[in-house]
């Protein structure tokens, strides 16, 4: 079942087509990655999903029904890229306040905050002010306030920026936990290694358009270039063949690309025939980072201002 469906969303600003006809679906309980270079339209897209902006065109289906921002925001948790908390407010009170704005009762909010604070070892923070916290600490607090009301849809914009590896892992584990419990997570970032590790499904947007949509494995397969890493001890005359092209040659390792419809077995046969032992044989899939750069490269780095005729 899809928790969220976007149908032909458009949002034009005075000088930008920020989001120009984007559609995709997100399955319940999945971890979804929304990727794109700076200024691709990710934040605008997220703001439409959180009900801050209304789309100019297109519609959103949330949980099987037409999205009604006023009531549905209670089921959404949003952690924006620019973190924000009331600096002068005590941490405990702040968490209670934000939870109550999401519709929790005071007692409920207190109970849940205490649970989370224990989990994140934040109990002693209750009466501290936000301005006393370090960046990483306030990040943890922000995460807690985002997921506190057990939203069906959690939107995290760059959740790991500013966190040390220990705390990043803590948050990562919680993200997996929440997904296991049935929450859906939209994860917006341009840190590709995290996406590969965490996300089930990704969408890549650039210049207001969707340019890629699929699961991580599927996309990697789609962009594979038949490159293999082979552990063999070879010298130059062993490699005179039309089956593959050598990309990198080390005394005990080869990086090669298949050519002319040859298969992996053709490569193995080639070495077997020459009686060269093969220690290892792996396919090298492109990293999302490479795919990302390949797709985005060539487009001007920053978006140009354009005339929009509404």
């Amino acid at each position: 079942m899809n928790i969220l469906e976007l149908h032909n969303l458009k949002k034009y600003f005075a000088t930008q087509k920020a989001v120009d006809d984007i559609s995709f679906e997100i399955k319940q309980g999945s971890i979804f990655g929304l990727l794109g270079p700076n200024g691709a339209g990710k934040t605008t897209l997220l703001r439409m999903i959180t009900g801050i902006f209304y789309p100019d065109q297109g519609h959103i289906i949330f949980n099987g029904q037409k999205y009604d921002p006023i009531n549905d925001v209670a089921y959404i948790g949003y952690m924006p890229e620019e973190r924000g908390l009331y600096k002068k407010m005590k941490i405990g009170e702040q968490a209670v306040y934000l939870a109550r704005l999401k519709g929790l009762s005071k007692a409920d909010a207190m109970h849940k905050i205490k649970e989370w604070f224990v989990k994140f070892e934040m109990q002693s923070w209750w009466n501290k002010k936000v301005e006393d916290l370090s960046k990483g600490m306030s990040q943890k607090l922000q995460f807690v306030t985002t997921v506190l009301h057990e939203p069906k849809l959690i939107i995290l914009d760059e959740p790991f920026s500013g966190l040390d590896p220990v705390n990043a892992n803590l948050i990562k584990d919680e993200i997996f936990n929440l997904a296991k419990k049935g929450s859906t997570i939209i994860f917006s970032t341009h840190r590709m290694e995290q996406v590969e590790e965490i996300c089930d499904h990704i969408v890549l947007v650039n210049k207001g358009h969707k340019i890629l949509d699929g699961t991580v494995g599927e996309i990697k397969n789609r962009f594979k270039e038949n490159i293999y890493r082979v552990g063999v001890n070879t010298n130059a005359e062993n490699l005179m063949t039309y089956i593959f092209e050598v990309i990198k040659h080390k005394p005990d390792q080869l990086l090669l690309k298949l050519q002319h419809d040859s298969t992996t077995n053709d490569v193995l046969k080639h070495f077997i025939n020459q009686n060269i032992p093969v220690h290892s044989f792996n396919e090298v899939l492109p990293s999302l980072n490479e795919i990302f750069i390949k797709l985005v490269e060539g487009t001007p780095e920053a978006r140009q201002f354009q005339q929009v005729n509404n």
Partner: protein
Amino acid sequence: MNKISLIFQREYITRVRNKTFLLSTFLLPIVMILFIFGSAFFAMSGKQKFKRVAVVNDPGIFKSNLKSDSTQMFFDFTSNVDSTNFTQKGYDAVLDLRSDSSAKKFVVHSKKQLGMDGKQMIETRMDRAFEKKQLMLKGIEKETLDSISKQTAGMYKIENRLTSEQGKSEQVNAAVNYGVGFGSGILIYITMFIFGAMVMRGVMEEKTNRIAEVMVSSVKPFQLMMGKILGIAAVGLTQFALWVTLIIVLMGVAKAFIPAELVQQAGEANKNMPGGMSGNSQMAMKMLELEKDFSTVNWPLIIGCFIFYFLGGYLFYASLFAAIGSVINEDPQEAQSLMLPITMPIIFGFIILSSNLSTPDSTIMVWASMIPFTSPIVMMGRVPSGVPWSHLILSMSLLIAGFLFTTWLAGKIYRTGILMYGKKASWKEMFKWAFRKA
């Protein structure tokens, strides 16, 4: 609605718990009362230093007429004292009445400066002595003249009674009306600035802290703005209530400790003195005196109008201040130029009030008390001296319509501005935000 009340509570509680609020609420009336009564008290006790003055070379007109007493200034007519030895003989100063010419100018020698008060005291007493001598020459006793002028001073009193349509006459006191009108007008003027700026700073804080984006993913921007505006209004009303209570209590305490006669004496003693001290003690005296005149004022109407116009004027401007706060980025300097179009009408209203208060029914006052931009300030100047109900109702409805309009307008600017970072919005852009469709 529930969300507005949550935001309202937060805004109210965090502000009321704030140290600045507590300080300004409790300290201001105390400082005010202490200043007024304290300066009166010090004026009384500090100034009256007894001085012994030796008088030499008296040509004869002063000896019997110069008023001398043992509390303030004692004149001793001797001959063997001069400017070199007066301190040894126990005098504070020597008054040399030898005149070189016909000019009425004499010399006082003293170790320490006599100061304005001392100098003036001697001059006044010499004038009186000369006057007494002249009266005597004309055959008039000084005491007779004094008793006549004492009798006549303030013998007649005029009471202004207004005849209303029903033919009922009521007593009015123009001075009290003036005071109450000006006081409440100035109070609304100041508070509109203070609380308007508070709203603006609050909005700026939310924007620069980037909490705004978190907030508007849970509540509508309009709810956020209204919650804040109403919360701060409640803070203002709380502060007023505390001020009024404190001032009444402190006045009672001050009166109990400082007897009215003392304050009156101080006022009397200072009457002839130049400078600000006399003003303060007279004010203290008046404050005690005025109480009986205050009973002629229609308090329920004034307090009702004050609360209405405070809230109305505040709501009218607060949303505009919120809109300004929402378009400003980190740089508070930007606020100055954007605030100008909002602060101008407020200042303008105050100028109209202060320059036309003595003629509360003049055309400009009537107009200014109708237009919502100035009505909260100007109408408060008119209310104490009586305003036709039709004027009051029209002014109030215009103000309500006005703040509904500004709130609607500001809400639209706020909604866009609060999430805009980067460059400052221009007036043209804000206009666009305000009037485009959702």
